[in-house]
């Protein structure tokens, strides 16, 4: 006798994903899709696909999708959520989309405490256009527009979005996770689920920043890329919760318990 303990989620369509081998987008797509399915909101979820590699997300998520201009996801999400507060609205964005061209939309949606969820994939590079420097590219990191490594004198410093948005008074949920190892993937799913629950309970803006790997544009093998996440990315972008809507009233420990998170325990 055997039991299927891991099956492809119905939150994704059947179309094979076109991302490069080892790319973190696929893992993150699965996490978001599983959370949508587990929360039972698939029939009333609207997703927003960005401009960038994950523009294809509108083919992969098995729910209504919209594809707005580069960086404008939070603005479109605002319009949709205000008209359909009964729907769950999430905006899937990369680092160029969210932290560069869409910075104003991101900051103001957070400041208005819009009840939307942002899935922010930070892989420190512009993937779709061939590996140009992003606002999150690490100091010294090579890209096609910083061929000698990012020089702070000419290109400034990387932006840490969670810390940045945590400075706002507006309530919300801000967390940074990664998907480079199984344990991190499980934590990431927990964070995504919590973010969606924050939206569903009307507690304000939620953003999950996910440190992801881009083997192709980092010029690394998939295995080297996950090592790069561990050794280079995470030291600069520390993982953890930066803001949670429960902190003030009930204390951090209780807050963690308040939201029930399904955690897989059936492995050795």
């Amino acid at each position, binding site marked *: *006798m*055997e*039991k*299927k*303990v*891991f*099956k*492809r*989620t119905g939150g*994704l369509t059947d179309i*094979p*994903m076109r*991302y*490069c*081998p*080892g*790319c*973190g*987008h*696929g*893992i993150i*797509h*699965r996490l978001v899709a599983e959370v949508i399915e587990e929360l039972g909101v698939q029939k009333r979820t609207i997703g927003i696909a960005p401009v960038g590699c994950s523009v294809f997300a509108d083919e992969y998520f098995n729910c209504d999708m919209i594809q707005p201009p580069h960086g404008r996801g939070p603005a479109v999400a605002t319009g949709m959520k205000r008209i359909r507060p009964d729907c769950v609205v999430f905006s899937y964005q990369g680092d160029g989309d969210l932290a560069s061209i869409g910075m104003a939309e991101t900051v103001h949606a957070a400041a208005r405490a819009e009840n939307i969820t942002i899935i922010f994939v930070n892989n420190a590079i512009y993937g779709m256009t061939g590996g140009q420097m992003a606002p999150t590219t690490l100091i010294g990191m090579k890209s096609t527009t910083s061929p000698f490594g990012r020089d702070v004198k000419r290109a400034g410093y990387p932006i840490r979005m969670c810390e940045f948005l945590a400075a706002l008074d507006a309530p919300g949920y801000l967390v940074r996770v990664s*998907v480079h*190892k*199984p344990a991190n*993937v*499980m934590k990431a799913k927990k964070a995504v689920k919590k973010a969606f629950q924050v939206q569903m309970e009307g507690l304000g803006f939620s953003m999950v920043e996910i440190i992801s790997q881009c*083997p192709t544009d980092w010029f690394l*093998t*998939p*295995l080297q890329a*996950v090592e790069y996440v561990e050794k280079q990315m995470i030291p600069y972008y520390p993982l953890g919760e930066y803001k949670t809507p429960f902190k003030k009233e009930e204390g951090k420990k209780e807050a963690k318990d308040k939201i029930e998170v399904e955690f*897989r325990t*059936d*492995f*050795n």
Partner: protein
Amino acid sequence: MSRIEVDEKRCKGCGLCVIACPFGVLDLSDKFSSTGYYPAVMVKPEKCTGCTLCALVCPDVAIEVYKETKKAGAEK
């Protein structure tokens, strides 16, 4: 015995599952798949515990995991 199924149409041979497996069950095949990649295959199927770690890191959602249930094991 627990086992996994790799969807060869989806697998791009990135190898993340190979390093995720604590028991060395997986490796990349030396034969091309129809999509032109070396897909992941079970090289030590007897060691699979059905822990799902490989599936958790698979970027292409190409892995499904079947775990042997205890009851069935007792019957054997």
